[in-house]
């Protein structure tokens, strides 16, 4: 079965090509169902591969499937090859699984859109790229997927491109990602220069065997981290992700919450032996970047009023947790949180999409409230997602966040405190969102039709569809409505997964049966061993066995639950019971003015700098090239004057030349 792994990217490719050629003819909803079926087939293949891997013993679960030789250039031999192992299999399962659900959801969500089939064209292309990214057995194949998902992200953010803000948001995402891609490319060059290959196997083996110098490992790890920061929206490159919400909501769910943005985390875990071999400051940098991003984004999320922006900043924050886990060596926890986050964040985004759909493209939470009555299924599933992200046991997010915090404390108490504060804030802002959207007072009705809302939209970067949705023709009388079954089914499935997702990696606590504990850890072993030097390497909690944190695990769980409760109750008192006036500092609402500062910097000194570079190019670089051309032209125009066209002169010159040559031979060289 593993040999057939190429089927996984093939199905979306077929879907992509079919819709590319005949999309308009297929139309709505056939194009959507075709795309969904293709991703579903990919998912089925991924499941089959999973079971195939499962039937083997844990040492032989890694296999490279070579498709063809891609770049055979001298020493640089790069194959189009897929690496099938527990890590890529895990990624494939949730990428294609959630992808299929979101495709199905989109059939309902994009109903009536004039570019219906084009949307699914991009979605299938995205799934194709994402599977390539995940499956690549070397950095270049991964990079191909990496760029592919970036491109699709660009297409889909600016999907309703007639609106200026959407097009700008797409450009912003693309340009910001380029900064990160630069790091990945440099890392590839460095890897090839140092170990002569860009294969993960070669790089990782060399790092494990200690043949890779610490400087090289540090360089590769740091440069790949730059790429990961760009793709996974960490400080300082997170700015594109909140704006990316300009795209249709299924896109936000699929690309900007569940799959693409986790690519950076995946890459870090993929090269974890290099991280182990790198200088100590690299993991510390990763952990602190993650922790600070998590806290920073959570504070911004506290004050956002756009239903999708809250989730966007929340995503940035949760990705911060994953990097915190990667930096502290908790690779399993990072993957675990990636999976559970994919479940509940996709659920929350799709739920918000359902709300937006039901509210006629209204995204401002200040104009919602009391929607539970009108959208019971959306609301119930959303609440499950909320409990999962807030860290309420036994929902999925609780287990993964708890494991990350455990490792954070084992590494440094400061990291733990940042993490736990973020957890409180997370519970707080999510409760605020749920209360504002589904409970509280009814604040819609006065001006809740799409046209008016679009006019009133202050920050128009996130407003929805430019073309008026066909289904929502009737203005005037307005009542929120529940979404169609194609949209509700994915919500229900994801809600179920968010409830029980934690089962894949339960901690070792007394009341949990031994056979149920650490399933993910056993599965990913031995890809995620951690520690310095071959002797000290271990997996999972074995690494932190001697720390205070490990001995007081139960206490930590208690603290985590208490934090979740504090956050939830706090927000409930503020927003539902109105016991306190909400504290929503302007600074947070403006995202710490970070975006503005960058705009200012790029607009003033930055622009001057770029102008300087452009001038250098046009004057010095172009000047040198043009100077050479001018020199040649001037010289030749002088030389050309010697060519008179008079045969006698030519003959004379030849004659004189012959005499001189002869003279030289006879007199100077002494021949004859």
């Amino acid at each position, binding site marked *: 079965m593993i040999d057939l792994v190429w089927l996984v990217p093939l199905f979306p490719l077929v879907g992509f090509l079919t819709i590319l050629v005949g999309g308009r003819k297929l139309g709505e909803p056939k194009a959507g169902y075709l795309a969904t079926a293709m991703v579903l087939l990919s998912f089925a293949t991924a499941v089959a591969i999973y079971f195939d891997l499962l039937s083997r013993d844990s040492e032989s679960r890694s296999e490279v499937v070579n498709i063809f030789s891609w770049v055979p250039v001298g020493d640089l031999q790069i194959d189009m090859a897929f690496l099938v192992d527990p890590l890529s299999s895990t990624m494939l399962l949730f990428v294609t699984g959630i992808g299929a659900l979101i495709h199905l959801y989109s059939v309902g969500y994009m109903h009536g859109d004039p570019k219906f089939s084009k949307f699914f064209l991009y979605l299938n292309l995205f799934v194709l790229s994402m599977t390539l990214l995940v499956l690549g057995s070397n950095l270049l194949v991964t990079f191909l997927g990496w760029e592919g998902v970036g491109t699709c992200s660009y297409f889909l953010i600016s999907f309703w491109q007639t609106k200026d803000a959407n097009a700008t948001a797409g450009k912003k995402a693309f340009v910001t990602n380029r900064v990160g891609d630069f790091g990945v490319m440099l890392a590839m060059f460095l890897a090839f220069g140092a170990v002569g290959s860009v294969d993960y196997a070669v790089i990782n083996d060399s790092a494990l065997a200690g043949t890779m110098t610490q400087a090289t490992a540090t360089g590769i790890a740091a440069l790949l981290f730059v790429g990961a920061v760009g793709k996974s929206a960490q400080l300082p490159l997170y700015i594109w992700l909140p704006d990316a919400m300009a795209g249709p909501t299924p896109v936000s769910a699929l690309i900007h919450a569940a799959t693409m943005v986790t690519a950076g985390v995946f890459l870090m875990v993929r090269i974890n032996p290099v991280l182990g071999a790198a200088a100590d400051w690299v993991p510390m940098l990763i952990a602190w970047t993650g922790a600070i991003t998590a806290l920073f984004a959570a504070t911004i999320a506290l004050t956002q009023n756009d239903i999708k922006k809250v989730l966007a900043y929340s995503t940035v924050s949760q990705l911060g947790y994953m990097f915190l886990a990667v930096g502290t060596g908790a690779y399993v926890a990072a993957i675990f949180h990636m999976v559970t986050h994919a479940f509940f964040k996709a659920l929350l985004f799709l739920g918000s999409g359902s709300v937006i759909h039901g509210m006629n493209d209204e995204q401002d939470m200040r104009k919602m409230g009391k929607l539970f009555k009108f959208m019971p299924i959306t609301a119930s599933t959303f609440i499950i997602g909320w409990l999962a992200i807030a860290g309420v046991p036994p929902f999925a997010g609780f287990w993964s966040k708890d494991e990350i915090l455990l490792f954070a404390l084992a590494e440094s108490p400061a990291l733990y405190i940042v993490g736990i504060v973020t957890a409180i804030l997370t519970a707080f802002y999510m409760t605020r969102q749920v209360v504002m959207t589904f409970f509280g007072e009814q604040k819609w009705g006065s001006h809740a039709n799409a046209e008016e809302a679009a006019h009133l939209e202050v920050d128009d970067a996130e407003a929805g569809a430019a073309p008026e949705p066909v289904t929502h023709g009737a203005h005037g009388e307005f009542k929120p409505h529940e979404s169609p079954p194609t949209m509700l089914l994915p919500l229900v499935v994801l809600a179920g997964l968010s409830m029980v997702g934690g089962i894949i990696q339960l901690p070792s606590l007394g009341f949990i049966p031994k056979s149920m504990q650490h399933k993910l850890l056993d599965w990913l072993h031995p890809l995620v061993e951690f520690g310095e030097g071959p002797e000290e390497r271990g997996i999972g909690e074995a690494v932190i066995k001697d720390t205070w944190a490990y001995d007081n695990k139960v206490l930590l769980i208690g603290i985590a639950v208490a934090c979740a409760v504090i956050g939830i109750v706090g927000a409930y008192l503020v927003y539902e019971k109105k016991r306190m006036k909400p504290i929503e500092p302007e600074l947070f609402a403006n995202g710490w003015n970070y975006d503005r500062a960058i705009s200012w910097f790029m607009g003033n000194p930055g622009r001057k700098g770029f102008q300087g570079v452009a001038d250098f190019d046009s004057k010095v670089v172009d000047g040198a090239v043009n100077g050479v051309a001018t020199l040649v032209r001037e010289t030749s125009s002088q030389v050309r004057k010697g060519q008179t066209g008079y045969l*006698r002169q030519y003959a004379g010159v030849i004659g004189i030349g012959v005499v001189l040559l002869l003279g030289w031979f006879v007199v100077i060289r002494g021949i004859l």
Partner: protein
Amino acid sequence: MIAAIEPSWYLILAALLFSIGASGLLIRRNPLIMFMCIELMLNAANLTFVALATKLGDINGQTAVFFVMVVAAAEVVVGLGIIVSILRRKPGATADDLAELKG
């Protein structure tokens, strides 16, 4: 009894012929005359070959002459063709009139 003709005489004659040809080429402007001057120079060279071949007892010199003659014949064909066509186009043209062909 006339003294035996020394090979060096032939060489002197060849040098003379070559000089006449070369100066004719430089001085005259009539294409046909210039052409004949070139032939003169070629045959001066031939004479040198033959003279030296006799003196050194080496047949290679005489062989080279045949090559020169063949090349000269080919050159005459091409050169005369060009000259005739030039004169047809511009009756009485001199070599200097062809300076318009310069780059």
